[in-house]
């Protein structure tokens, strides 16, 4: 609710001092709000899934970063650092691209484990979710 009232756009075009006090007020509000949400950094991929009759995909950053540094996915494998910016299809994955670079039965279990990736609630929008003490990334 609070984050809705203080849309990021309202920060633009104000005087510096006002801007700073808004920043400070926002910090106070996020501390009070502490929303119960998805784990920080979870990404939902749902550009194609639901349209094609399967649940949205949930990608957990926290789980993967225990095992791989960011550079593995965002440099070696070429995942763009913008939720929704990668056009991932199931055919790519079974051909060893994107998630399929690892989920190939060698580095990690294979693409036949549909429900482990397609685990999201129906109706979710693509994007990055959740966060302890944040109203969600982009809204920190």
């Amino acid at each position: 609710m609070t984050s809705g009232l203080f849309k990021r756009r309202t920060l633009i075009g104000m005087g510096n001092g006002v801007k700073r006090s808004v920043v400070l007020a926002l910090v106070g509000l996020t501390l009070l709000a502490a929303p119960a949400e998805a784990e920080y950094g979870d990404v939902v991929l749902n550009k194609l899934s639901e349209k094609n009759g399967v649940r949205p995909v949930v990608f957990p950053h926290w789980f993967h970063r225990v095992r791989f540094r960011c550079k593995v996915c965002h440099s070696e494998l070429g995942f763009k650092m913008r939720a929704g910016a990668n056009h991932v299809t199931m055919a790519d994955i079974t051909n060893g691209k994107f998630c399929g670079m690892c989920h190939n039965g060698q580095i990690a279990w294979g693409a036949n484990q549909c429900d482990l990736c397609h685990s999201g609630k129906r109706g979710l929008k693509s994007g990055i979710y959740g966060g302890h003490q944040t109203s969600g990334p982009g809204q920190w």
Partner: protein
Amino acid sequence: MVSTISRLPVLILLLVSMAAWAQTARQWLPLAKDGIHDPRNPALRLLQEPAAALSRLPADGAGNQVNWVHALERGVINPRTNILPETQVMVIDVDIYLNLRGGTPIVRFPHRAHTMWLDCTNCHQQLFASKAGANKLSMEAMLKGEQCGVCHGAVAFPLTECARCHNTPRNQPLPVGAIRGS
């Protein structure tokens, strides 16, 4: 207008309250109640619960409630740096001092903490030109998810953690040879 003098006590108060918050016990929601997983998915129980993994890692008050810098530096985790054998893995240990003209504390940007996780190309040259002082940084842009805010607020510790970036007092001289950035 809020002056520098009247703003500081507010900032300090906030930081203290954040630190107090960080002391309270860490809790993670079970996947079935996190609002994004389908609780009726029969495979849900095969997935690891965040609490099972994250409660064993060094504590922090925000984000994943894990201090990922400590987790890596102390060897609690050792995530892979590459999967292709030919990849060049590069870590540099150069600090750059930012926000030299502002009213809030100076920002010491540590290349080490970043290049332990990231490749140079994740930042250079799209997000930041690799030349001290060459970028026009702004807190406002970060709050909109740009610049430092591409990661901080999404995956790395969130922007509510002011003091982790604004980490260097303004009233003391910078170390000899300090690189002065934007």
